[in-house]
């Protein structure tokens, strides 16, 4: 394991942000995905969608200007950018399910080589299940980017042939960004886009549960 060189969460988010084109409408999931907004390259206008009814999410408000009823899907205080709009929930999910959002960035417990995503429940049934908007996003948004640590804190495999946790969607993930590499999901399975600096394919393959095609 000591031959692996892991990126920080911020650096994974920064890498993913390079792939968000100018003019895109993008939904960011809770947690690591939410960091992506801070790293969009200068000169690109991107409209971030928040499922609770805001298109055009802006940065955290300056102290003293917070509006407690202006929040994002992570329940964090936000602002709006020029061109933003508010709307109610069924309109918000029409944007998501109806194919109007270009890209969704989602966290993942597991991703499989056939594009299966598991990100809403584990096999531990002590905790109540909570799905939120993830299942609607994955069926409606044409490009799904998964952002995640390559392995679990305990070293468990998270990129695999088939997910073992309950699925969020089938064949939905387009690309995976981890602290070790970027992988495309293709009809052959995972295909290497790039390795994080300092890593070898052999070392990354050793902590991946499915074949990585070079």
């Amino acid at each position, binding site marked *: 394991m000591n031959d692996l060189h892991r990126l920080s969460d911020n650096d994974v988010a920064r890498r993913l942000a390079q792939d968000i084109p100018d003019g895109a409408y993008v939904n960011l999931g809770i947690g690591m995905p939410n960091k992506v907004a801070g790293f969009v390259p200068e000169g690109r206008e991107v409209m971030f969608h928040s499922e609770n*009814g805001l298109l055009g999410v802006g940065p955290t408000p300056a102290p003293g200007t917070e509006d407690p009823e202006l*929040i994002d899907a992570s*329940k964090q205080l936000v602002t709006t950018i020029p061109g933003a709009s508010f709307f109610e929930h*069924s309109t918000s999910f029409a944007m998501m*399910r109806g194919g109007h959002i270009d890209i969704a960035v989602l966290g993942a417990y597991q991703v499989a080589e056939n594009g299966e995503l598991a990100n809403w429940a584990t096999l531990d049934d002590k*905790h109540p299940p909570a799905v*939120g*908007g993830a*299942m609607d996003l994955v*069926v409606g948004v044409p490009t799904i980017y998964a952002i995640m640590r390559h392995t679990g804190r305990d070293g468990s495999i998270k990129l695999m042939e088939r997910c073992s946790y309950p699925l969020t969607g089938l064949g939905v993930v387009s690309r995976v960004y981890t602290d070790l590499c970027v992988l495309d999901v293709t009809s052959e399975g995972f295909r290497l886009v790039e390795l994080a600096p300092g890593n070898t394919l052999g070392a990354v393959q050793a902590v991946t549960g499915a074949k990585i095609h070079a």
Partner: protein
Amino acid sequence: MALVPEGYTDIAGFALMVAVATIAMPCGEPIGKGPRMIDKRVATLAEAIAPVEEGAVVMIGGFGTSGIPFGLIDALASSGVGGLTIVSNNAGAGEEGISVLLRNGQVARVICSYPRTPGSIWFERRYAAGEVELEVVPQGTLAERIRAAGAGLGGFFTPTGYGTKLAEGKETRQIDGRGQVLEMALHADIALIRAEEADRWGNLSFHATARNFNPVMATAAKHTIVEARRVLDGPMDPAAVITPGIFVGSVTEYGVRP
């Protein structure tokens, strides 16, 4: 005899019909005795919440801490009415909102998309003890099931959830080459709504992301109860109305904003 409508041969028969019609009017006022005002304003939250009955299905607007009708929920908690089914995106957090209803043991069942907001201790406690049933619904499907109820539809097919645990036991169909799941309309007895402004006709506007589930829930209940930060003296600008008053049962001013 010219005043008696065709088909009535004598004035006594016409008078009897008018009398019967008068008795049948809910407020006892005869037709044609001046305009009847539409006024949905109710003075107190306690009065507003009075129509909620034991075992009712209650939709509650809000997402996170935004757009939650905290005043109405507190009034419902004080009323002590129990056996409720709560339909909401979340299941409360901390010691406020839906958490109070759960703490009081007034909730038998929760239908929501995300019951695991940090601090959802009362939901977790009641769920772990088997004291509250949970139906988890994908968030967009929840909104659309509510919309279907308000729009008079029986249900709809959606690709959301197809092939997952949440579609188990549901009818499916291939439509446009995709697997889709039949989801049914979700009706409620009562909706509790938080609005920014209201007028006496029940027209509503909303502030920022406090809109969320409130407008769609307002359409799906037999009786929709609104707390508004401000109740206007006159009519709202028609172009500013987000929820038309036809969907609203009562409005009460409650100025507090979290």
